Structure formats: structure tokens, C-alpha cells
């Protein structure tokens, strides 16, 4: 339960940070990696949470845009010659990979400069 809450909180943090710009995703993940994540596999959690946070935005885009989201996805698909689902996957994958790599980097830096928490596990 605690892990789930942590995951949701982190997802929310990623979603909120994204309002500042995409760069806030790696920044948040690095912070997460550096500052005492007490959950198992923190980088993976960061990746999933970032993707989940961005998925939340996509859902919001879809709800607020109504049918416009489908139209947009269709046009982007025609523009890129990629299926719309691949574009969505690319979007979430971009956030996830960015968060994972930044979380690992954060973990390394955190370990180097702040020491490791007692319950810290490998990234």
C-alpha cells in the first residue's frame, strides 16, 4: 500500500513538474534517485511513474479536447507515417526512459555526495 501511494505521489509529482517543461521530468527523477527512495527498484518506479504521469496528461488532453485528440492523433500519424498508438507509446516511453536514466544518475550522485540510506537498494 505504501509503495502504491509512493508511486502515485511520484506520478503526480512528475505530472505537476511537467507544467514547467519536459526537462522537469529528468530533474524530478534525479531528485527522486538522489533523495532516499525507500522503495524497491527506485529507477524503475521513476520510469513507470513518469510514464503514468504523462499518461494522465494525455487522458486530460483527450477529455478536454473531446474528439480533437483522436483527430490530432490521426494527423500526427499521417505526418510521421507512424500508427497513433506508436506515437503515444513513444511519448510515454520517452518520459519513462528519461526518468529511469535520470533516476540512476541521481542515485549515483546521491550515493556519492549524500551517502546511502540504510534501506537503499541498487538502482
Amino acid at each position, binding site marked *: 500500500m505504501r509503495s502504491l501511494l509512493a508511486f502515485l505521489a511520484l506520478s503526480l509529482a512528475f*505530472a505537476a513538474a*511537467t*507544467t514547467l*517543461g*519536459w*526537462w522537469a521530468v*529528468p530533474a524530478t527523477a534525479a531528485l527522486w534517485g538522489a533523495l532516499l527512495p525507500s522503495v524497491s527498484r527506485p*529507477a524503475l518506479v521513476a520510469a513507470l511513474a513518469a510514464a503514468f504521469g*504523462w499518461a494522465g*496528461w*494525455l487522458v*486530460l*488532453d*483527450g477529455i*478536454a*479536447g*473531446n*474528439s*480533437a*485528440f483522436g*483527430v*490530432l492523433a490521426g*494527423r*500526427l500519424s*499521417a*505526418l510521421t507515417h507512424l500508427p497513433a498508438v506508436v506515437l503515444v507509446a*513513444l*511519448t510515454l516511453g*520517452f*518520459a519513462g*526512459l*528519461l526518468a*529511469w*536514466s*535520470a533516476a*540512476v*544518475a541521481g542515485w*549515483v550522485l546521491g*550515493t*556519492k555526495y549524500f*551517502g*546511502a540510506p*540504510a534501506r*537503499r537498494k*541498487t*538502482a
Partner: protein
Amino acid sequence: MVPLPMSHTPLRSRVRIAVAAVLLIALGYVGARPVGGVPALGGFLDPAGGVWALARSARLPERSSARIPGLSSPVEVRTDDRGVPHVFAATEDDAWRAQGYLVARDRLFQMELQRRATAGTLAEIFGERALEADRAARRRGLAWMADRNAAKGDAGSLTVRAARAYADGVNAWIDAMPRSALPLEFRLLGGRPTPWEPKHTYYLFAQMALILAYGDEALSRLRVRALVGRAAADALFPINSPIQEPIQPNGGHAPRYDFAALPPPGPPDTLADIAWRDRESIDLVLGLPPRRPGQTDAIGSNNWVVAPTRTTAGHALLAGDPHLELSLPSIWYEIHLHVEHGPDVAGVTFAGSPGVIIGFNRNVAWSFTNTGADVRDYYAETVDDLSRPSRYRVDGEWRPLERRIEVFRGTRGETLGVDTLYSTHRGPMVREGSRWVSVRWTPFEAGRPGEDFLVLDRAGSVTEWLDGWRDFVAPAQNGVVADRTGSIAIRSTGKYPVRPGSGRGDDVQDGSTSANDWRGYLPLTSYPFARDPAQGFLASANQQPVDPRLNDSYFGSNWYSPWRAMRINEILRADSGVTPESMRRYQTDPGSPRADAFVPAFLAAAGRLAAAGRADSSLRRAAALLAGWDRRYTRDNRRAVLFDRAMAALTRGVWDELVPPAERNSPGARAVAYPEEMVLLELLADSSSAWWDNGATSEVERRDDMLAAALVSGLASAERDLGPAGSDGWLWGRAHHANIFHLLRVPALSALELPVQGGPSTLSPSPGRGTHGASWRMVVELGPEVRAWGIYPGGQSGNPASPHYLDRLPGWLAGTLDPVLFPRSIEELPQPRVKSTLTLRGGP
């Protein structure tokens, strides 16, 4: 647990860290920077403010508010279900501010692109590949002239006030625009909108002048003269149309055919050969490439007005449909501006132009077609230093050149080039080969661009409307107008130069003498004009505006064949009970006077050859197929393709002398220019003219031989490309399409291969590749309450995710018009049709 130093980290972890580091750097790079044409992925994919967020901004909020600095009092905006904003403002300035805000919200990229194209700053968003276009734009000098006019504009003048107020609105949107609303094109190109300056409105009008006041008839005539001599060239590209169906009624009840025998091809004219190369070189330096031969009336328009005596309801009716290059988003933006104790006007305008350009108010409706006047001349200048001129000589005296340094920037602000440009009292001066040539062009002299349209928005009667744009400069337009009292009028308005000598500007003039300068402009009394004529209607379709027997002033030459004018006049002469619905129907009428003129000629030729025993089975079959055509360009028509291909073959075959000799044997060879089809019709009267002979054969062909050969060739090519005669492949809607490209010509954002009713020179023309056509169709009834209908292909929004990006396309294709809401107050707006409410207030 004490953390392990890196050297003690297990190998698996070290690999993971290395992978993560590489990935982070790589993702950071592609996230922040565009790579190989792919935009920077971070900002692009970011769902909060990136491309996906366009879905959120695709729909206008039901209720919102914003601030525009300078607003004197709040402005209420109601956007209806067609995406049309109804602006209720206390003052005109406030209305223009709101208009700038709204158009920027819906068309920001279009505004940016248009102004950059005129200013020659496209390289700043497209990079070095746009540098040559930028250089040509700067050499043309339209933006430079606009800058100068904007700088010296009187602050109290209508133009300056409107341009400033409009810019306030645009910039208020840019400043407050949420990340999610950044147009897709900026995301793809990686740029940001730049602040809008009042002078950018001037640029827009300069750009329109470039499109509409740029004829190359002189070049065509010179090129043809070089091949077949002056007499033939003058006959093929005449000053006066051989079919007279003028805009100003000439008292005739039918077109007048002033046909004469065409002089045979003469010997090549070497002087003209030099002259056309000169002229074309200058055109190219100025980025004015010759128009593609065979693009019949691509840029053209229709408008007509009907007096109450000929309408069912007894109210004047007006129709207008400007034909321009079709684009997504459309060149037009529809808006209604309601000013307390001021104009209450609706219609369409350009993205970037305050007010309404084509439309109506409570009393008057109006529309324009292009006159196509000859308003551009070149002068060879004598300069003091060929490489670095500082003076030029006129009448034996040296005059200083105006000099400016033009810097070209790239996407990162880097300098891509620096040009030094000059101008004389005539206009910009460019270097062409080893000489310097200056350009005189009426758009340079439009000191208050757009002002006339703002005045027209206020007109309360036909008289006021005519008076309102009496000083209009360029591009010359045929304006029709009707008012609620039932008065109708038409006038071809613009500055028409009076030249010395022949009055024509074909050759590059000697600039060293002021005797070659324009002597002034034709007076208003010479403009083609008619008001409340006995015939009860007035129409224009880019034909020669006035019968030379009534007014021999020189306006231009090589006018479009008047097929559209003939058709609309034929229809209006026959209809004494016109209704708004019939006006709508006429706008997409599929009938073709061109076909009416040429089909009988094809059939008669085939008949004569058959009677003489010289018709083979192909000719008999082709003639039978063509005889079965109703001469209408409807989508389900299965014969129009045959006629079109036969006409193309005939044109190529007859004018083979106009193909440069060195190219005559190469496949796909084209003439340097093709005469208008009315000249071909003129030639039909002379069965043994030397023009009928095909130089590629040893026999001497005559008219009937060429007509028959073209018909057989048309059938063969249609069957080869489209399948057996009469098959589905021959359906006009399948064989011919309209193609509406996005501004960046991205197919995914375009509407392509659209089946349309209409073909070359029908009232709703769709020539060539279908990239041009009716860019706006409007019908207005001037009754006790003004009623109007309108449509354009595309939609109000430039956001491809918006429901208003393409929502008008089906109606446009079907030839229907939308009723235009024109409420006198907010309360009069039908509430179910209001989709968005916006309150604009002043303040920072």
C-alpha cells in the same frame, strides 16, 4: 550499510549506470535539439504543453476573459458554431484590438509566415534553404516600401490607428498564450512567434499586391515576338480582347466577337529575343518567375450584383467569389465587428488585416475581382560605378541613390548573408548581369494600404462606398456594390499609369531620361464604371473591363478569355426572378461557354472529314462521344475529360510555332507562352491559316485536320490514362481534383484529391492541378434586414486538431453556403449557436 565506491560496484550495476548515463545524454540531446528534421522531442512530446496539448486548445473555452493593453472599455466576443467571432466593442480601435487578438489566437502561424515571406526573413525559421527566396523578397522591396510608408504614416490616420490597435491585440495573445496553444507548425519548425508590429499589416497588403498586381503579359508577348515576329505576337497577345463582354456594359445584349484574321507566323525578331531575356532575367532577380503556361485564369474571381427589378423579393442581391490559391488554413478569416455608434460589418478579411475586406454592413454589400492591370515597368539606369553605385543619372544630372544594407539571419540568429540594395525615385534597383535596372510598380505607391477597406466598412450607401475608395492604389480591383435602396454599381479601381509613347510597358525603358517616366495616372472619370444600368445587373470575371470603342484608355492586355463573364451574363440575362438560392447555384454552375464555343467546332470538323471520306473509326468514335456531352463539368460527368484532353492537344498542336526550335522534337515540349483560348477561337474562323500547319509533318494541315487530330489524340490519351471510354475512370470527379495544400505543403495537414464540380473556366473554376479555386463564396440580400450566406474551403482555425480546421470543406465541395449570423446585439444571437464567450478588458 555503507555505500560501495564505484570501483566496488558490481559489474551489472556499472553497466546499468553506463547505459543510463548514455541514455540520459542522448535523450537530453534529442529532447532539447532538433535532429535531422525531427523537432526537439522534449517540448514536442510533452503532454502538458507539447503537441498533444493542441487537443486541449482545439476547442474554445465556453467562458473566458483576457486583457489587451489599450482597450478603452470591455469588449464582448461571442464565437458561434461556425467558429466566427462576433465582436461587440465601444470603439473601432477596440474592435480592431479584439480582432487582432482573435485572429492571432486562430491563425498565428499563418500571420508569421505571410509577413516573413514579404519581409524576406523566412530563413530565420526555415534555415539556409530559404535564403534565396529571402534575397529575392528584399530585392523586390515591398517590405522596404511598406516600412517607409509605416514610418511616415500620420498617427491619426485610419491606417496607422488600425494597424497599431490590431498589433496590440495580436501581441496580447502572443504574450498571454498558454504553452498548449502554440501552433503545430512552430513545434515542427522549432520556432516561436515574434511580436507583431503595425508595419506587418502593411506587409500583408504588399503581399496581396504581389499576387494580384503581377502580370507578365509583356514577357509573354516579347518571348513570342522573338519566335514569330511582332505582328503575330501582338495579335496573339492583344491589347483588346477579340471577344468583348466588358465589365462596364457596352449596350450590347450578347458578347461581341471582334475577330480578325491572325497574321501568319513571321520571322524571328532578334531584338525581341534580347528583350525578353532581359526582362525575364530581371523578373528572376526579383523573384518573379514567369507564370506556368497553360494555367488558365487560376488567379481570378467572379462578382455580380442584381438590381431589385430582377429579383423575386425586390431586393438587390450581390454575389462574390474570389479565386485564389487554396490553402489550409484559408487565406480568409470570417468575422463580425459591431461597434457602438460605428460600423457594424461582417465578412472576410486576411489574417493580419484589420476590418473586413469583402463583406457587408447594415446598408451595403461588396465584393472584388482582380482587374489585372499593367502596372509594372522596368528602367535601365545609368550609374556612376557598376560595382558600387552611389548615384544614377537622369536628364544629364546625377542623383543620389538610396542605399540600404540587408542582413539575412538563420535559425540561430547567425548571419547568412549581407546584401547592399539600392533604389531610385522609381523604386528598387537591382543588378541584372552587367547593368542596373529599377522597377516602378504601383504597389510601391500605396502609402496607406488597407485604409480604403476600413472606409468601405463604414459606407452607408453605394455613393459613399464608391467615394470611399476613389484613391485606392493597388492591386486594381473590380468592385461591385449594392445597397438597401436597391442601387447597384461596379468600378475598376486602382492607379493606372499613363505612360509616354505607345502607352505600353513591354520593353525595358531607358532610365536616363525622365521623358520615359510615367506621366501620372488615369483620372477617376476614365475608370471602367457603371451604376444602375438598364440591364439590371452588373458582373465581372477578370475580363477586359471596358469596351475599347467606348474608352480606349490603356489598362492592360492579354485579358483572360471572358468565358466566366459570358456564362454569368448569359444566366443573368435569362433570369428576371433571381433569388439568393439561384445566386448560390450560379456560383458553382457547371456550364461552360468555352465548351459551347469549341465542341461544335470539333464536331463540325469531324463531320466534314467524314463527308469527305477522311474520317477513320477513331475519329468517328471520338466525335460520337463528344457529341453526347452535355457540356457540363459535373462530378458524375463522363465526357468532360475527353473535351479537356482534346483542347490540350489542340492547343499544343496549333501553337507549335511558339515552342523554341531547339525543343520542338523533345517530348513534353511547351510553348514559351500560350495565347488565350479566345484567340484560338478567333483562329477557327480561318480554316487555312498558316497557324494550323503542324511544322513537324511534311503535309500542310488545315483547321479540320488539326481539330480531328486533337480529338483523336484526346480520346487516345483519356483511354490510356483513365480506362475505356465512359468507364468510371472518366468520371470528372475521379479524373480531376481540387487540392488544398497546407501552408507548409505537408500532405498530412492538407486536403487533397477532392472531387469538385467545375473545370477550367467554369464559374467555379478548377484549372490545372486544382490548387486554385473559389477561396470564399458569398451571397448577400439587401432587404429591410440584410441576409447573407458564405463559405470558404477549410475552417476558421489553423489548429489541425480543431473541429473548425476543415469543417467547411464538405459544404464548399457540395456548393452550399452557410447562413451568416449578423446580430445587432449580443441578445440577438441565438444562444444555442454561441459556443464560446470571451470578455476582453484593458490593462496590462
